[in-house]
C-alpha cells in the first residue's frame, strides 16, 4: 500500500486542482459548531474540527430527497405516471471525514444494497463519492469507536486515510478511487519507508487515548426474546427519561430509517423520502389506530434492540454503531447507549439482572 506525503502548504493548491473533477465537501465552522458542507471556491475544510454534531450521512443520504416526480396536468401524456427525476451524480469527495463516520457507510450499505433490492439513490451517491478520511488523534471523552468495530485509524471504508503529522499529512492511499483523487490533486511525493510504521505508531497512541468502551462479546449469544422481555431489569427504568424526540436517530451516522411522503406543488406530484425515527409513535401507527409500539418503552427498546441485537443477529457483523458518541453527547435526557449496551451484554435471564456501568 502506498503512503504519500502531502505538505500542508500544498494542501490548498491540491484541493483547488480537485475542483474541476470533484464537488468538495468538508467540515466547516458554522455559527457554534462544525458541519459538513460543500466547499465553495477557495474555501478550505477546517481540519482541526471537533466532530460534527450531525453526522455526514446526509452527503449520501439527504434528510429529504426527491425520489419520484410526475405530471398532474391532465393534458400531459404521462399524466400521473411517476418517474425518476433527472439527477446528476457528479463525483464528490468528502474531505476530513472521521474513520468512525466513514465506517458507518459500510453498515448502512447492508440495508440499502441487498440481494433482492437495491436502493438506487443511496448506491449511486455512495459510488460517486471518494472518502478522504482524517485519522482521529484526539478522541472525545464519549468516543468508544475502538470497541464498537471501528477505530480512530480505521480505514475499512476510506479511499485515503490522512494522518496529521505536524507540517504534513501522511496519506495512505487505499483504493483505486483514492489513487485517482491523489493523482488529480497532484499529490505524489513518496513518504519514505518508515511512513507506514509512523502511521501505525500514531494509531496505537490514538487507540490508547480512548477512555470509553462498550462490551459486546455476549450480545450474539444472548436470546433475543430474553433481552426483549427484560422490561423490569432494563427497559422500563432506562426509558423513563426518554422524551421520544428524534435527536439520537437524526444525529446518528448509522440510523437509516425513512418515511415516504407525497407532496403536490402546482401541477406536479413529488414523492419524497425523509429521515424518520423509531422514537416517534407515528412510525408504526396503523391506520386503524392500533400501534404495535405504542409506548415509549416499546420505542426505546426498538432503537437499542435494533442496534445491539437485531442487527447483530441479522448480519453477524458486529453492532449497528460505530462509537462516534453523538447520541451520548446530544441526547437531551442523557440516555447513554454505552450503558445500555453493557446492560444487554451482561444480562442474565436467570436472575433477571445486569451489570450497570457508569458510562
Amino acid at each position: 500500500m502506498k503512503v504519500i506525503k502531502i505538505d500542508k502548504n500544498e494542501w490548498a493548491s491540491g484541493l483547488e486542482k480537485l475542483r474541476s473533477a470533484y464537488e468538495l465537501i468538508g467540515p466547516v465552522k458554522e455559527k457554534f459548531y462544525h458541519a459538513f458542507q460543500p466547499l465553495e471556491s477557495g474555501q478550505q475544510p477546517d481540519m482541526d474540527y471537533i466532530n460534527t454534531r450531525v453526522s455526514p450521512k446526509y452527503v449520501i443520504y439527504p434528510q429529504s430527497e426527491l425520489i419520484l416526480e410526475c405530471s398532474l396536468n391532465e393534458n400531459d401524456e404521462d399524466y400521473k405516471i411517476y418517474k425518476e427525476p433527472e439527477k446528476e451524480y457528479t463525483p464528490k469527495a468528502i474531505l476530513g471525514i472521521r474513520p468512525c463516520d466513514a465506517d458507518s457507510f459500510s453498515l448502512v450499505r447492508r440495508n440499502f444494497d441487498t440481494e433482492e433490492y437495491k436502493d438506487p439513490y443511496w448506491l449511486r451517491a455512495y459510488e460517486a463519492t471518494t472518502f478522504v478520511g482524517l485519522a482521529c488523534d484526539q478522541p472525545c471523552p464519549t468516543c468508544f469507536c475502538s470497541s464498537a468495530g471501528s477505530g480512530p485509524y480505521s480505514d475499512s471504508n476510506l479511499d485515503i486515510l490522512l494522518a496529521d503529522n505536524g507540517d504534513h499529512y501522511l496519506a495512505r492511499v487505499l483504493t483505486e478511487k483514492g489513487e485517482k483523487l491523489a493523482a488529480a490533486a497532484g499529490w505524489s511525493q513518496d513518504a519514505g519507508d518508515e511512513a507506514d510504521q509512523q502511521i501505525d505508531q500514531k494509531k496505537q497512541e490514538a487507540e490508547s487515548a480512548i477512555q470509553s468502551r462498550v462490551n459486546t462479546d455476549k450480545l450474539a449469544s444472548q436470546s433475543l426474546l430474553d433481552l426483549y422481555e427484560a422490561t423490569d431489569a432494563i427497559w422500563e427504568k432506562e426509558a423513563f427519561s426518554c422524551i421520544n424526540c428524534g435527536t439520537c436517530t437524526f444525529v446518528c451516522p448509522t440510523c437509516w430509517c425513512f418515511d415516504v411522503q407525497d407532496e403536490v406543488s402546482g401541477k406536479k406530484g413529488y414523492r419524497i423520502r425523509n429521515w424518520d425515527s423509531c422514537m416517534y409513535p407515528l412510525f408504526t401507527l396503523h391506520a386503524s389506530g392500533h400501534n404495535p409500539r405504542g409506548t415509549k418503552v416499546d420505542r426505546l427498546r426498538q432503537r437499542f434492540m435494533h442496534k445491539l441485537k437485531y442487527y447483530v443477529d441479522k448480519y453477524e457483523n458486529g453492532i449497528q454503531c460505530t462509537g462516534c458518541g453523538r447520541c451520548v453527547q446530544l441526547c437531551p435526557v442523557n440516555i447513554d447507549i454505552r450503558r445500555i449496551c453493557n446492560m444487554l451484554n451482561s444480562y442474565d435471564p436467570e436472575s433477571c439482572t445486569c451489570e450497570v456501568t457508569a458510562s
Partner: protein
Amino acid sequence: MKSYTDKIKEIAKRLLKEDKVDMVIGYRKGTVPLMHQPFFATSEGEVDSFVWDSNCGLNLANYITDRKERIGIVATGCNSRNIAVHVVEGKIQRDQLYIIGIPCQGMVDRHKLAAMAEGNIASVEEDEDKGTITISGQGFSKSVDKAEVLQENCSICVHRNPVLCDELVADEVTEQTREQADPYARVREIEAMSPDDKWAHFDDLLSDCIRCYACRNACPLCYCPQCFVDESNPQWVGKSVDPTDIRTFHLLRAYHCAGRCTDCGACVRSCPVGINVRDFTKKLEKDCLELYGWEAGLNTEQRPPLDTYKPEDPEDFIK
C-alpha cells in the same frame, strides 16, 4: 449543591418510607458532563442516586403527565409553574403530588460552555462559595463565573422560588425584580427590527433545524396525543426539511404555548443544534403579560388567557 442534594434525599426517603408516595422524580448524575438525567426512585436505595446542581435543566413536569401514581417531585420555580399548568389543564391532580421545592439558583448553559471550551469537556466542577464553574478537558481548564454562563432564561428569571410546593429544601432565594432582570430586552431588539431584518433573523435562526422535535418533546406543554405536524388527515404541514414547513412547525408550536409557557428553557437546552427557540415563545409571553396581565402557572385555578374569553379582552390588534 451538596446541601440541596442531601435534603432531597432525606425528604425522598421519608416520603417513600412513610408510604406518602409511590415514586419520587428527580435527577441522577449523568454519564456526561453538564447533563443530569431525569430519574425516578421507588425505593430508599434508589434515592441515593439523586443529585442536585446547575445541570438539572430538563423540566420534570414532563414526567407526570397523566400518571396515576402518588408522586414526589423535585421542582424549581419554573418546574412548579409547569406543574400548576398541568393541574389547571387536568393532566395531574394536585393531591397526587408532593412537591419538593427547590429555591433555584439557575442552570448553566451547556451550549455556551461547549462553545467556550477549547476541545471536548471531560469534566465540570462547581464551586458554590466562589460562584464559579470550571470546565476541563484534554489540554485545557477554564473557570468562569456561573452568572456569566447561566442559561439566558435563568439569568432573567423572576420566579426562582417554587410557587407551589409542600416542602422546601432550603430557604427561599432572593428574587430579582422585573426591572432588574429586564426579561424582554431581547424581544424588544427583535421587535425593533424592520420586517426584512426580522425575516432574515428567523430564517437564520431556523436554518439548522433538523426537525427532530426535541424542543417539542422536551416541553411539558406539548403533551398532545398527536401533534398537528403528525396529523395526516388533513395534513397541515409537509414532512420534509422544506423551510416553509419548518417555520410553520415552530410558529404554530409557539402559539400553542402562548400563555402557558413558563420560560423554563427546556426547548433550547434540548436542541441538538443550538437553536434559540425562545425567540418565539418569549415574545408571546411578553404579549400575554402586556395584553392580559398574565403570567403562566402562578396558581392552580385560573385558565390561560387564550383558553378563556372575557368581553373586556383587548381587541385592538384585530385590524
